[in-house]
């Protein structure tokens, strides 16, 4: 069976219908690039396990309907709730619409926020999904953390979508630059309220200047019928530090690409993640780190808990380029399968072209430790509670790696809550 193709003529119509502004030439160029290359198919090694057909079908329905984006009223309450629960400078993109008021409210705390259309951002052509994003982009955010600055609070990026009609497609784009010697933390929060046929395509670029540091948490809690592709590209200069921690607690079809490029010696990159998969969920995490120069270190640990018929993918690629001597790279991926119907495809990939390097990887897939289970039960703890306790402990090791202190507790309780639901559903 042939995968459906994106309706290019309808897409061209949608691009032409967008208001003309400084982004227009880039939208048109991206459209042509996408027309030439198309969206990835499962014939590509990197897309072997994730079929974009649902995303394409939603896109074609949405293009045919020619709808203007609308903001559902119920979204406001959710945004207010997020603001109450997590203290951050919140920037909100709701159904692709940037909240101008939130932009204006962004406090004077060592960083600057503008619309992409207000500047001369070059959005580049590096991946078909990024082209798709550029072509249909209404507008995006450009965040600049000033050199030497340390914002007191995290910068919150709230991506919230609510489908008000049969199909909705949302493109979100965020460009972040952290100036030399600056330190900033971010929480990228993906939320939605449920309704069928939603596809969001998020593209973020993060550039760390010399000695800059970013503590970055991505929290994905989309509804269980949400389709999403999300890409973060990080460029690291000399002595920069990245601490990234990702949580996938929702979504139906989720594909994340995290690509880190180490171009300066002395850089350190830590990226961890936790994915919790339940009935009908497909969560694909692809990470890639390019060590272009040494010495530099990277540490990666992803963990997954899979129940019911969940399908998850972890693919961790590390490329140590020729001359990147002094590279020290470790990657690990551990999976807990709580049901027979769950499936994980775990694939570490190391490509080493330098001589003096230290690289390691480890992958495990397993069930709960029966001895530990018996130990807890022999202390009077019921079987189901013991399963909960051990599973939480497995997940807690990633929660413990969050480097934004104020988020530890709230994300910990979200993880526990989601695990509780997944395990209980699995016991029925």
């Amino acid at each position: 069976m042939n995968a459906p193709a994106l309706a290019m003529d309808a897409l061209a119509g949608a691009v032409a219908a967008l208001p003309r502004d400084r982004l227009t030439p880039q939208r048109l160029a991206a459209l042509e690039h996408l027309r030439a290359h198309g969206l990835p198919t499962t014939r590509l090694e990197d897309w072997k396990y994730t079929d974009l057909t649902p995303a394409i079908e939603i896109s074609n329905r949405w293009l045919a309907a020619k709808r203007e984006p609308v903001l559902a009223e119920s979204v406001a309450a959710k945004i207010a709730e997020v603001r109450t629960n997590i203290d951050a400078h919140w920037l909100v993109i709701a159904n692709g619409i940037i909240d101008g008021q939130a932009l204006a409210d962004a406090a004077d705390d060592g960083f600057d926020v503008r619309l992409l259309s207000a500047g001369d951002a070059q959005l580049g052509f590096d991946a078909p999904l990024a082209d798709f994003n550029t072509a249909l982009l209404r507008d995006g955010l450009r965040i600049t953390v000033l050199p030497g600055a340390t914002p007191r609070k995290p910068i919150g990026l709230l991506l919230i979508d609510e489908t008000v009609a049969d199909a909705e497609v949302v493109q979100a784009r965020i460009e972040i630059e952290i100036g030399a010697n600056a330190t900033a933390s971010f929480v990228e929060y993906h939320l939605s309220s449920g309704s069928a046929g939603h596809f969001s395509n998020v593209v973020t670029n993060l550039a760390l200047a010399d000695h800059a540091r970013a503590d970055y948490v991505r929290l994905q809690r989309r509804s269980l019928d949400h389709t999403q592709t999300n890409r973060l590209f990080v460029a690291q200069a000399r002595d920069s530090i990245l601490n990234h921690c990702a949580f996938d607690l929702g979504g139906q079809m989720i594909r994340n690409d995290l690509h880190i490029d180490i171009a300066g010696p002395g850089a350190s990159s830590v990226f961890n993640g936790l994915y919790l998969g339940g009935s009908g969920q497909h969560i694909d995490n692809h990470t890639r780190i390019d060590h272009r120069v040494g010495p530099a270190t990277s540490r990666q640990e992803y963990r997954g808990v899979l129940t019911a018929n969940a399908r998850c993918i972890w693919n961790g690629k590390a490329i140590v380029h020729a001359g990147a001597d002094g590279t020290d790279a470790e990657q690990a991926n551990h999976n807990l399968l709580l049901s027979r119907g769950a499936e994980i495809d775990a694939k570490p990939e190391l490509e080493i072209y330098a001589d003096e390097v230290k690289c390691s990887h480890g992958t495990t897939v397993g069930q709960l430790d029966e001895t530990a289970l018996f130990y807890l039960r022999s202390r009077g703890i019921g079987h189901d509670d013991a399963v909960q306790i051990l599973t939480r402990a497995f997940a807690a090791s990633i929660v413990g790696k969050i480097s934004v202190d104020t988020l530890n507790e709230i994300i910990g309780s979200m993880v526990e809550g989601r695990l509780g639901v997944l395990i209980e559903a699995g016991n029925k």
Partner: protein
Amino acid sequence: MLEINNLKARIGTTEILRGVTLTVNAGEVHAIMGPNGSGKSTLAQVIAGHEDFVVTDGTITFDGRDLLELKPEERAREGIFLGFQYPVEIPGVNNAYLLKAAVNARRKHRGLSEIDAFEFLKLAKEKMAMLDMDPKFLNRGVNEGFSGGEKKRNEILQMAMLEPKLAILDETDSGLDIDALRAVAAGINGLRDPNRAIILVTHYQRLLDYVEPDQVHVLSEGRIARSGDKSLAVELETKGYDWVREAASA
């Protein structure tokens, strides 16, 4: 309190217990000794309800209840405690959390309310002092990175907090230096009570110098080959297990 009658059990296709009969009354301390592979640990685990072992024959009753019908957690709530030979490390599960959850599971079963947080901490610190344990252990992962001796003390701490009716201690003395052995023995002696029974599973007589048993049984090839008072342990120490084996087959 505990009546075991002609108990047979296997793991996979290997028969390990071949007809064990044993009665333990409240207030008594029994020692079960025997060479490696005689079935001592299996007996302890079968009483606690380990599901890897299949009971093929015989009965176990506890205070008149058929124990074999109960799940491990139900046995624990009824008042059975197994001190593990190899206590399990559970990273990410806080020691205090486990202790509290275990205490509350037993309290709930007895129709009591959950233990007050302040009361719990006071009690735990009291018992830890008796066992010469640093209170910091409460906030560490269960047995995570504990030395052999610390793990065994932690087992005794759990026992002391849970106040079981029947405590089975599986090789609790193995791998302990003399200070740890004394602390553990003090912990066990502190729990001797007319309403409680204790079964010590041990390979050596050493622990019995500190915790004096009322009865000693020698397990050999899945059966109790000999029973006697504490002098049997002394006799074993000098004559070795071969003596029992020969006597049994004679």
